[in-house]
């Protein structure tokens, strides 16, 4: 049985935040047609891929899946369970915004099968929340995390963003302190990415907002790693930290180069060395599914070299490159060719000295892209 991760993209949001480039829409039109389409898509793919395949994780992302009512979400989960073989210990995650989500709704999430929750806090500082145009307050964020715990979630992630314009080190460290004081098991700490097409990008281009420089970013990142390590969190990916045993199984599927199926708007799937992605437009997605059962916008069949590149990139970003696993997949020539470069990086404290796995140090993580660029 092939272990496979399963992702569902729910495109609806109450509001578009200035930094966000995910596909999302603010109207509630088409909520029901989307559900029908999604169910049909799940069914279509299950006919091709459900055989010899076991779903080890389900992740509802968006958008804001927690906006949907519980029955809606339940229908989606049921459709997955009906059409695929799902592991008994499946990890089932829902992304949540802290605004106006009640304890009751959180309990219901737990009841219909979600066992992991990811809360988009972003900041515990009111000024920063305002700047990011988040629609929740600091108190709502704190309360949501506590309620999630009260509702029975034992695996709670929150997202935070650092290196925001004007963010001082004090503000960021106080965000982190607030985070670890709450009952969380996982923390994603993202350095702000300026994405094309976002409102923030335009503000920067217009000179209304100035980004901080990359040395400052490096300082914050370094402090983050130090602080969270002290607090008993381990870093298992560039931006992800967790308590022992709480790595996100779903995201590890991406990073460990496992297969994944994804449904919904703009969703990307990766099976048998082929990657394909759906139309982003909700209307287009619905009409394509209606007409032919799928809504694939484009695909690529990866060459061996592309696979190698992706494998190196993803493994270095996360648990490190295991030499045995690599050799099984790609042979030993590449590793031999890079030996000198590896020793140089070890000597300069970018790689850890471990004979089986090539893993980045703290400094290495900070310039991971530069290292990968030079390596490939």
């Amino acid at each position, binding site marked *: 049985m092939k272990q496979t991760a399963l992702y569902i993209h729910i495109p609806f949001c109450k509001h578009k935040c200035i930094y966000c480039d995910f596909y999302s829409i603010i109207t509630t039109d088409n909520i029901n047609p989307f559900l029908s389409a999604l169910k049909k898509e799940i069914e279509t793919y299950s006919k091709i891929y459900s055989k010899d395949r076991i779903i080890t994780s389900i992740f509802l992302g968006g958008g804001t899946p927690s906006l949907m009512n519980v029955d809606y979400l339940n229908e989606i989960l049921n459709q997955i369970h009906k059409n695929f073989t799902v592991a008994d210990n499946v990890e089932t995650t829902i992304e949540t915004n802290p605004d106006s989500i009640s304890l009751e709704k959180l309990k219901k999430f737990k009841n219909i099968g979600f066992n992991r929750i990811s809360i988009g806090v972003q900041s515990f500082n009111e000024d920063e929340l305002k700047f990011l145009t988040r629609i929740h307050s600091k108190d709502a964020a704190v309360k949501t995390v506590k309620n999630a715990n009260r509702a029975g979630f034992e695996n709670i992630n929150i997202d935070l963003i650092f290196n925001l314009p004007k963010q001082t080190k004090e503000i960021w460290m106080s965000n982190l302190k607030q985070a670890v004081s709450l009952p969380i098991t996982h923390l994603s700490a993202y350095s702000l990415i300026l994405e094309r097409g976002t409102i923030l990008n335009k503000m920067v281009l217009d000179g209304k907002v100035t980004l901080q420089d990359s040395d400052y970013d490096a300082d914050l990142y370094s402090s983050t790693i130090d602080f969270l390590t002290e607090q008993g969190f381990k870093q298992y990916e560039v931006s992800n930290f967790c308590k022992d045993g709480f790595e996100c199984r779903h995201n590890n599927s*991406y990073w460990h180069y496992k297969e994944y199926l994804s449904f919904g708007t703009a*969703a990307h799937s990766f099976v048998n060395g082929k990657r394909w992605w759906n139309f982003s437009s909700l209307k287009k997605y619905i009409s394509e599914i209606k007409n032919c059962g799928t809504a694939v916008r484009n695909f690529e069949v990866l060459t061996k070299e592309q696979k190698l590149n992706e494998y190196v990139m993803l493994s270095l970003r996360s648990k490190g490159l295991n030499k045995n696993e690599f050799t099984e997949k790609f042979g030993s020539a590449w590793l031999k060719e890079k030996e000198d470069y590896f020793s140089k990086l070890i000597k300069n404290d970018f790689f850890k000295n471990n004979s089986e796995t090539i893993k980045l140090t703290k400094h290495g993580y*900070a310039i*991971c*892209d530069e290292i990968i660029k030079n390596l490939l």
Partner: protein
Amino acid sequence: MLKIRNFCIVAHIDHGKSTIADCLLEITGTVTQREAKSQVLDDLDLERERGITIKSHAIQMKYTAKDGENYILNLIDTPGHVDFSYEVSRSLAACEGVLLVVDASQGVEAQTISNLYLAIDAGLEVIPVINKIDLPSAEIDKVKGQIIDLIGCNEDDILLVSAKAKTGINILLEEIVNKIPVPKGDENAPLQALIFDSVFDSYRGAIAYIRIFNGTIKTNDKLKLFVINKEIEAEEVGVLGMQKIKTKSLTAGNVGYLISGIKDVHDTKVGDTVTHSKHGAAEPLPGYKEVKPMVFSGLYPTDSDDFEDLRDALDKFRLNDSALVYQPETSVALGFGFRCGFLGLLHMEIVQERLLREYNQSIITTLPSVEYYVFNKQGEKIVVDNPALMPQVAEIDYVEEPYIKAQIICPSEYIGNIMKLAMDKRGLYKNTNYIDPTRADLQYEFPLSEIIFDFYDKLKSTTRGYASFDYEYMGYQKADLIKLDILLNGEPVDALSMIIHRDKAYDWGRKVCSKLKELIPRQMFEISIQAAIGSKVISKSVVKALRKNVLAKCYGGDITRKRKLLEKQKAGKKRMKQVGNVEIPQEAFLAVLKLND
């Protein structure tokens, strides 16, 4: 022979040489208006763009004069730039007369004068012509005064023309017939024909443009070239109309072409003499010179894999340009490339530009250099055209560099600016003449190395484009020259080294260090940039190590995009040049060339 007139046109850039030529061709019916692309004589796109004739051309016109006789007029075009002054002198040698064309609003300029002197030295009859008399800004009387001062003619001798409006052209044609001397020579004497130009044709090989001074060439004649001492056969001879017109023979006094199965232009040397292999002339015509490159620079393919392509392109280019010399060289920083010698700066630019445009070669050029004479302690002379070949400081006794004699003509209000520029460029002031009360003719001596860099651009900007400039080579003089190295993390980047005057080394070193700091991206390790004379560091800067470069998010939907970005960066990396563990972007090499802008 009595009915042949051979002449050329001397003019400064943009004073209307090509327009007058076109106008003569049209009025004599050599081309119809429909055929007349603007400026027929400028073949290359580049020539048309720059308004500079790079290669000489010749064309024959038939003209029925007022006396009722039919005349043959051979117009021989001349290159308009000092880099090609030897070619100009050979074209002039093929003529009996010259039209001196001066723009009615611009007046006499530096190139007008230098080419005019060449014409006078060659003993040609000068017909002064003021062109563009219809311009509102024309100052005919003033320009007349300048011409009279220059050549000592009478006011009545000066023709007033507007080639654009086609006024005065008929009178000009009559003057050509009446004033330009009949060619001398004996068609029965042993053959002496001057090669004044040669072009490459991919089907026929080298085509020599010749002027017959004595004797006659017939098709199938066995011929001999004096300089290369080689026997050839006249496969085809003819005259040059709009196309080549085959004839049975060419006789003394006439101008035409000769095709003889010679592969490329290196054997048809400009200035060489053609004669018969049996009963030929005892002596060649005077005036032949081997052309020598004056400016040198390394040409490297942008992508090291393209070295063979660049070699092919240069080999092809060379068929057409006998002045270009090159030989393979290697640079630690740039890999395999060629050290090329050029006649001058313009020639260098033209070669680079044509390699890019016509041969699709993307190249990096190193700083241009002149040929230095380095004398070592043993008293030996070493010729150095590449900073990499400069001996160690301790071995050097003294260094000499080539000098030029420069003539700058400008409105008198810019004299101050020019003097300041000349001082920056180590110029030695010689003399000032006034062409008229508002225009000065300044004479200077400069080290050639100062001129090949950015002198011309600076001169133009400091005089708002009003100054004109010309020069001739003088010889070598001693100078306090040193080799300045640029080091990255202690490793010298050979392509950035230069030979420079000691007084200028500090300023240059500082500029290079700060420019490189700006252009070299931060990398995994700190990069120290140093400028050094021998082991003495005179300037430095640092590119700090990159501390953060990692994309925060990489989930299922990001992987393709991220991989493509990496693939793109990898391709970009291939265009970077690696010195030690430092990657140098190409722009860094280019920027150093333009450092003084």
